[in-house]
């Protein structure tokens, strides 16, 4: 017998509960913060943290798809962010005179996303056909390579058109010309057009993409390939293709996050997107729980804000931050606490 469910019942059933919670959290956070912002009650510190927080959220949601849902370790998420960031900054810089800010921001994010997706696709072709931890190795190298490439890249434009040079900038700019990427100095003089609303929309977009992928036929194939490769192959799933899907979407989201990030600061150097940033995002994902999008949302926000909230501790803040990370790791991995927590959840449900 099939009973008819109320709307609330549908929203909270197994298939939908996780995304209902995600969207609710984002919506509530957005409304509260926006009210605080408009009434001038949000401190300058938090106002400045809003956009980078959304950037890390998008990158972390993407990475969770790759690491949690697809089960392939990716150590180069910051490298993908760098590709998106610098291409986004270039697009915005080139179109500065002709396109108003909001469409330009959207365009920059789209270009950053597509370019990064393409780069991810190229990397995925050889690597995802292999079994084992090869993606981790290759993305680790990719992150370092991208950073070093951008450090040696010179992009400028003037009245004669776009100029690109590598290692040595041997071009003479006409008066009024401007560097978009200036080698080790990175992107300077970028117009800051990113804002919190755009960031929130991007987070919602990332959630829609990831949830729709997870709860689709392809999503089940991705998880099947993660759980048992041989069994998945035996029922005709193309492993390389499904893993590629998760990887490319993850890279594309990192690219979009990067573009938004790049357009939020007037200066950005490539060394920002080094190995440490990749690991930072991975920490957000792992501590939030692999494959758990809500966990990622919460842990990203908490772990991103923590070093800033600890500023009051002065010299000890990074020390305390490290200690808190260790404590979270120990506590969340403790079997006793986990069984207690799940027992508590079962009790509540009953």
């Amino acid at each position, binding site marked *: 017998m099939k009973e008819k469910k109320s709307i609330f019942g549908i929203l909270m059933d197994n298939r939908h509960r996780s995304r209902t919670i995600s969207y609710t959290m984002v919506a509530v956070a957005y409304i509260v913060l926006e009210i605080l912002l408009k009434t001038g009650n949000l*401190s*300058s*510190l*938090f*106002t*400045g*943290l809003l956009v*980078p927080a959304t950037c890390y959220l998008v990158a972390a949601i993407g990475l969770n798809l790759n690491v949690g849902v697809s089960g392939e370790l990716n150590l180069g998420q910051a490298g993908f962010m760098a590709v998106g960031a610098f291409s986004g900054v270039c697009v915005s810089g080139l179109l500065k005179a002709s396109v108003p800010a909001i469409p330009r921001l959207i365009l920059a994010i789209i270009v950053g996303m597509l370019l990064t997706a393409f780069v991810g696709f190229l990397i995925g072709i050889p690597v995802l056909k292999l079994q084992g931890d090869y993606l981790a190795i290759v993305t680790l190298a990719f992150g370092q390579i991208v950073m*070093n490439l951008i*450090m*040696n890249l010179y992009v400028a434009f003037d009245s004669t058109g776009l100029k690109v040079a590598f290692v040595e900038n041997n071009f003479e*700019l006409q008066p009024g*010309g*401007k*560097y978009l990427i*200036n*080698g*080790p*100095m*990175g992107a*300077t*003089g970028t117009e*800051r057009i990113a804002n919190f609303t755009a960031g929130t929309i991007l987070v919602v977009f990332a959630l829609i993409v990831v949830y729709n992928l997870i709860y689709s036929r392809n999503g089940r194939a991705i998880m099947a390939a993660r759980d048992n490769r041989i069994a998945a192959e035996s029922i005709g799933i193309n492993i390389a293709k499904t893993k590629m899907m998760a990887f490319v979407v993850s890279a594309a989201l990192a690219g979009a996050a990067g573009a938004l990030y790049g357009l939020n*600061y*007037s*200066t*950005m*150097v490539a*060394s*920002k997107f080094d190995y440490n940033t990749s690991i930072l995002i991975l920490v957000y994902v792992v501590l939030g729980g692999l494959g758990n999008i809500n966990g990622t949302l919460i842990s990203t926000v908490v772990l991103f804000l923590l070093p*800033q*909230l600890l*500023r*009051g501790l*002065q*010299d*000890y*803040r*990074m*020390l*305390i931050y490290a*200690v808190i990370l*260790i*404590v979270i790791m*120990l*506590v969340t*991995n*403790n*079997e*006793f*606490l986990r069984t207690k927590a799940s027992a508590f959840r079962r009790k509540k449900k009953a």
Partner: protein
Amino acid sequence: MKKFWKTTLAVAMTACMAMSLAACGGSASSSSTSSDAPAAEAESGAAEGGAIKIGGSGPLTGPAAVYGNAVKIAAEMAVEEVNAKGGVQFSLQFEDDKHDAEEAATAYGTLKDGGMQISLGAVTSAPGAAVSPLYQEDQTFAITPSGSSPSVIYADGEGMTGAYGNVFQMCFSDPNQGSGSATYIAAHPDLGSKIAVIYKNDDPYSKGIFDTFKAQAATEGLEIVYEGTFKGEESDFNVQLGDAQAAGADLLFLPIYYTPASQILTQADKMGYKPTVFGVDGMDGILGVEGFDTALAEGVYLLTPFVANAEDELTKTFVENYKARANGEVPNQFAADAYDCIYALAQACEAAGITSDMSNADICAAMVEQFTTMTFNGLTGSDMTWNENGEVTKAPKAMIIENGEYVPAAE
């Protein structure tokens, strides 16, 4: 249950470790007040009386921490001295930015929440360039002790156009150092005629100086026979030195920091290659490198605004007081620049009659007027003036290392 106790023990041990480490750190600095909420503003304001709030950020942690800490210590020292004089009163809030643009913007938010009225900007260049537009937007006056890149004071750093107008520099800008070096070398042909340059091409500081050095060298008719680069934490320079030697270079220009410079000197000595070495202000500190044979630095030229063993009274007292505060560390030029910043601000505030109840925009306008018209004498130079773009004019001092000490070189 056993597992539970194990975890509890682990957590407890982590906490203990943190506590013991924190205890080792000694007493925390006191003069900076940190706050997350605007509510704290009122409290600290009441506690400090009518003090003008100065904010600043720099790397207090991470690989560049030595610069941020030097600025912080010197600025705190200068603030205390200024306050003790009884005239204009300052209070200082200094935040960590880890030499990162994102963190610098966050630190700016924290400072703004803390009620900052005048700023020391950011200690290093890249974070400085990120926060300068924010200072312009909010019309808060800023003078950076050591953010030497032109992009700190210009919206278009490469073209040197679009000056922010309210962000000033206490240090030389990178281009000035590059062209100053080239001019000095051209004026002293006895130093050498065939020039080799080894620079760090992933560092804006090094690259910026090299670019202008090269341009100025071309106009002065200097011959650059070799350009070598390195990046990151590289420590083997045999290839670059070999190439420089093969090209017949007799003058080695090193627009880099002292750590790689010390390695270059050591390796050149091992190869039996003895060119004249010329450095810029980043070379300051080479005599303090651990394990470095300072005899190798004999005869090294460097262009620097500040030398810690100068004989004048001002420098002597500064070095003495700084050492007392910083566990015997000798102050570098970052510290000297920061010290000068506070005194220059004090001089300008006195002259303009700035009080702590004025708005940031009013203070900013008055300070810009003062700085563009006043002359300042400090540790890093005398008769310093600023133009309306915020660039400082002071004479770079060429120094030569003789018997393990800096000695002024021939003008």
